[in-house]
């Protein structure tokens, strides 16, 4: 914030205070005036936050304690939804397992992939802006339905992927129809969108002073040692940031599993991500109360996982000077 300035034009007197003689005169300082203006400009965002985010969140908290199928008004049932989800629903636990598999593989893979590509691109390529854009494109399109459909074709029985395998004499199959390989397709789809993390890594790599690498070279460090002992430690805040972001995103992943499995989570529930199962319960089976409770369990899980990463940060993240 700027320091209070003494531009006379900004000293506006409250019209009311002038008329009320027994009250002390209250002038708005330029600082207060500036704050007011700022709040005015923030209003649309606040309204959005209240009506589009906080409102529905609170509503879903209420609904999670009810039975509600949209047609009839919600009926309070206390913790029954939560009890059923956690202790009676085997499909729920399947979806949890699928989701953990998905998050557990894709977050590290995206991190490795994005850091590796960023490091290669950071070697001062002449066409860097072009490469950067190319790698970033999947991140822009990754979550879209169209791309989901495309991938489904690529990994289908008659897909391009099998055509490619055939060149090497390997027998293809419908990768998305087999429970063992289908989850990997989802992971692949996530890793494919590494561009967003990569762009952040690239920006961070350029912040590392070249003199550190020079000093390390003179100290006898090979390229790999420099990467391991300079680049990685200096990037840990960014790794941390990306890890948090990716974890939150991946837990909520929905579109790809919906498209690839045609909304079923099949084969044999092998692609039944948490959000997809939630969607099925809430919007297919019209059990909004159950869905809301699942959403809150997801929220709390994400919060605790993020918390775990934050807690671990003090052991591996290096923060500035």
């Amino acid at each position: 914030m700027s320091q209070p300035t003494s531009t006379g034009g900004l000293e506006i007197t409250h019209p009311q205070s002038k008329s009320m003689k027994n009250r002390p005169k209250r002038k708005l300082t330029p600082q207060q005036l500036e704050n007011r203006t700022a709040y005015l400009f923030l209003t649309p965002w606040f309204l959005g936050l209240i009506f589009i985010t906080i409102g529905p969140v609170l509503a879903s908290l209420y609904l999670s304690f009810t039975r509600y199928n949209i047609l009839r008004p919600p009926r309070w049932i206390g913790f029954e939804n939560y009890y059923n989800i956690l202790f009676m629903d085997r499909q729920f636990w399947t979806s949890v397992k699928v989701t953990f598999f998905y998050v557990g593989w894709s977050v590290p893979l995206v991190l490795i992939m994005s850091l590796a590509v960023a490091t290669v691109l950071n070697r001062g390529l002449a066409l860097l802006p072009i490469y950067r854009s190319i790698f970033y494109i999947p991140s822009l399109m990754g979550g879209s339905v169209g791309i989901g459909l495309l991938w489904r074709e690529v990994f289908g029985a008659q897909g391009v992927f099998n055509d490619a395998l055939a060149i090497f004499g390997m027998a293809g199959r419908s990768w998305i129809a087999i429970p063992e390989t289908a989850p990997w397709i989802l992971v692949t789809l996530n890793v494919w969108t590494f561009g967003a993390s990569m762009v952040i890594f690239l920006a961070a790599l350029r912040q590392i002073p070249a003199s550190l690498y020079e000093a390390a070279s003179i100290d006898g460090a090979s390229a790999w040692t420099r990467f391991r002992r300079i680049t990685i430690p200096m990037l840990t805040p960014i790794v941390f940031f990306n890890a948090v972001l990716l974890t939150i995103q991946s837990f909520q992943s929905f579109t790809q599993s919906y498209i690839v499995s045609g909304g079923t989570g099949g084969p044999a529930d092998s692609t039944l991500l948490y959000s997809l199962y939630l969607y099925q319960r809430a919007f297919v089976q019209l059990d909004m109360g159950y869905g809301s409770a699942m959403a809150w369990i997801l929220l709390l899980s994400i919060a605790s996982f993020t918390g775990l990463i934050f807690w671990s940060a003090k052991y591996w993240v290096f923060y500035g000077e």
Partner: protein
Amino acid sequence: MANVILKDLTKRYGGGALTAVSSLNLSIEDGEFLVLVGPSGCGKSTALRMIAGLEEITSGEVSINDNVVNDVHAKDRDIAMVFQNYALYPHMSVYDNMAFALQIAKFPSEEIKKKVHEVAAILQLEPFLKRRPGQLSGGQRQRVAMGRAIVRQPSVFLMDEPLSNLDAKLRVQMRSEIARIQDRLQVTTIYVTHDQIEAMTMGDRVALMKDGMLQQVDTPSNIYGRPANTFVASFIGSPAMNLFHANIGDPLADGASLRLGSHQLHIPQKVFEVRSELKEYFNRDVIAGIRPEDMDDAALTNSHPDNETISARIVLAEALGSDIIIHLDFDAKMAEVIDPDTLSDISKSLDGENAGICVARFDAKSQAKAGETVKVSVDCERLHFFDSETGLAIRGD
């Protein structure tokens, strides 16, 4: 321990558009402390970085310990470098910063520990070994940077303005500390600076560069006392040497007379003996150099010969306590900083007015005040002479 030899070392940037270092020839002996000095942008860092292996060599050769190392990677040159910004690893403790090179060289950890503690003791860094560089003061960081270089016991130290980020007092202290350490370790050292005091006080020899070209390499006292050209003469010394266009008269029995504008000085015979080439310059224009410290208030000396005295009006008197810097109104044409390669400077100053300033360093006892006209005694045996066309010193050897 090793010597360093530079042969026609050249660096061009931008496809040859800019020559940062031009045919540099230098030979630094084993254990020598060489200071590379020159104005900003003259190519000191570039030269040092080529020796370090951080900058590609356009042409020429660098040899360390009699091996040409042009194609040897920086990590294999067995050198240590202290950077201007220290380039300490911010995420490592002071201990790890110092141990890094030894860890990479796979020394046993007991030995690393011993070496680091030894060096930390020399540099009084022991209380800070567990801290990160960010938690240290500028002077402490500087010492860590030194320590990191020392621990490795390299064959050559390269230092690029290692003191320029320190305040004046700390700089003085570290200056002597570095010189002391180098003296103790006897490691060949190339030290880059643009500070002439560092150049004069620290090195065994000083190499002075300008515009990528070496001007003179010599001991500090020779650089000061026998500058090779007008650039060296004006760069070393503070206040700088006064350089005037002058004219030497006919040979006399006891020397010759020197005309500086409307002023006249006597050149003793002894000068012609020391500078035998000066005999070629009777009745010719030269550039005469007078160091401020070779002038004094004539009132303070009683037996100074009259013909080695000038009188001039004081424009400004700056009392520094230890002495007084006197700016004199002097009507000889000033020959400003010129060098053998930019002769245009001379013609420029020739076209100018005849009004010049001569700076003298008077003893603090002097009563001279601004506005007064004083008699100034000049130590004429210590006059310097340069060829007015080439700017090169007129000497006799």
